[in-house]
């Protein structure tokens, strides 16, 4: 029996998706319990300043550009914003994605017209490429980059690129490319708990922790 693109699509939409969700759910619970249960050494020093609000302040202040940094590292700061917002728009406001959510969680929300999502997808992908070039050409960034950084970059680009190619009927027939798109998204889902991509959850606790620690040391936000 030859495997047709419909078989691939069928697997991606059914067992493949279920497997990805199972690994994602298992991995996320496992990793979050592991991370939060690690705890920290008790800090026996007296707090230097009034601590308390510092952790929460940091959670929000880190959304802002630190003074002068926008000029010193525009690609890093603007790229980070454009990519994250773009990825969010494409993920959450493309109508087929909303229908998938409706099927999984039982409710949906209004979507955006496809050409707008299309444009945002292009901007997001271009930003990813610019960020990669910056990562490779900037000596400091290249020094601190590991294999995982490049892997997660590729895993993030893959669903965007395959989705774009599928929508525009490029390279492969639509059903095949759609199957690849779903598989790419599933791969991203599977990798999420076990790579730095888990930051989509841990980013805010991490900010809170840093802010709290610095507040304790007398450098409150």
């Amino acid at each position, binding site marked *: 029996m030859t495997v047709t693109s419909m078989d691939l699509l069928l697997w991606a939409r059914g067992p493949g998706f279920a497997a990805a969700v*199972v690994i994602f759910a298992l991995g996320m619970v496992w990793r979050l*319990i*592991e991370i939060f249960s690690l705890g920290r050494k008790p800090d026996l020093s007296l707090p230097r300043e009034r601590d308390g609000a510092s952790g929460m302040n940091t959670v929000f202040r880190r959304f802002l550009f630190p003074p002068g940094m926008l000029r010193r590292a525009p690609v890093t700061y603007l790229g980070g914003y454009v990519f994250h917002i773009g990825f969010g728009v494409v993920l959450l406001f493309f109508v087929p994605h909303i229908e998938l959510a409706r099927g999984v969680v039982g409710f949906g929300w209004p979507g955006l017209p496809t050409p707008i999502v299309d444009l945002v997808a292009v901007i997001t992908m271009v930003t990813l490429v610019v960020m990669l070039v910056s990562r490779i050409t900037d000596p400091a960034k290249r020094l601190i980059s590991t294999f995982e950084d490049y892997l997660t970059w590729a895993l993030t680009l893959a669903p965007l690129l395959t989705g774009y190619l599928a929508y525009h009927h490029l390279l492969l027939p639509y059903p095949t490319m759609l199957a690849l798109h779903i598989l790419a998204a599933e791969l991203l889902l599977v990798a999420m708990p076990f790579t730095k991509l888990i930051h989509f959850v841990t980013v805010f606790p991490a900010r809170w922790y840093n802010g709290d620690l610095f507040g304790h040391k007398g450098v409150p936000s």
Partner: protein
Amino acid sequence: MADMTVGALLRERGVSRRTFLKFCTALASLMALPPGMGGAIARALERARRPSVIWLSFQECTGCTESLTRSATPTVEGLILDLISLDYHHTLQAASGTAAEAARERAMKEAFGHYVLIVDGSIPLGNAGYSTIAGISNAALLAETAQGAAAVVAVGSCASFGGLPAAEPNPTGAVAVSELVKDRPVVNVPGCPPIGVVIAGVVAHYLTFGKVPELDALGRPKVFYGETIHDRCYRRTFYDRGMFAESFDDEGARKGWCLYKLGCKGPVTYNACATTKWNSGISFPIQSGHGCLGCSEPAFWDVGGFYHALSMTTTPLNKPTGIALAAGAVVGAAVAIGNRKKQADARKGHQKATLGDLEKTS
């Protein structure tokens, strides 16, 4: 009569030359041939001896035959029956029993190596007794009849891909014609049923050019299955603009907006419905307000609910996700206990250092 040319037979049947030329021109445009090809097709068909056609029906519902015959003559679809010498067809032949089988054997013998074999229905491999004709199993009959066929046309989704009989859990072990016939050109004309004019077009192409049309990866003629319903759909602009019918009776449905959310499988379905349409070009499912079921694609019965959007998952997630969450909690707790133990061991292993230790020169 089998020796008559198509032209002679059509004249005998009282089909006017004008009707015949209209048919040929329509076929030429349908197959995306240059306009001048209409005349060439007419000349070729006029002179062609009608090929002997043996039509075998296996696990099928006769819907494909209905599609071909339920049309007002002389339409394109109706004419197909004049183009060929249909020597054996369970549903359409008058003979039955031994006489019918004799007709098949005679046709096979007289035109061995030249006849066209049309098959509708899938072939059960589970048990030979699931479907037999004159005591011969479908698989044996296909193997025997395919031997002398110049080409095999699998009409309908069952013959092309297994169709409904092959749907989960495929109790009869149904397979497509192409799974069994490997040494003959097999043309798949899927659809449940296929468009009559597409069946006609494939046969006319064979008569005109003496070979099967160019096929895609799934063995379908590219001229008819080259584009998706979605790409040729007149409601496509609504998809692009994000205007969707949310139910079959809301404002969007009444205004003819896109049916994607109501389960239309047009984006992954390759067929000619949106261009040739049905019933002499009157309409097609989406035009009458219902999404495409994707009936001309493999496994269309198993690709999730007809009324579930294409992007929806086809496997229930609640139970596996619940188990995954619980398993994750167990794994997480085990790892956490392990880490705690490591921390405790490290603390236990701490040695107090005194000033005296630092002064030692060891």
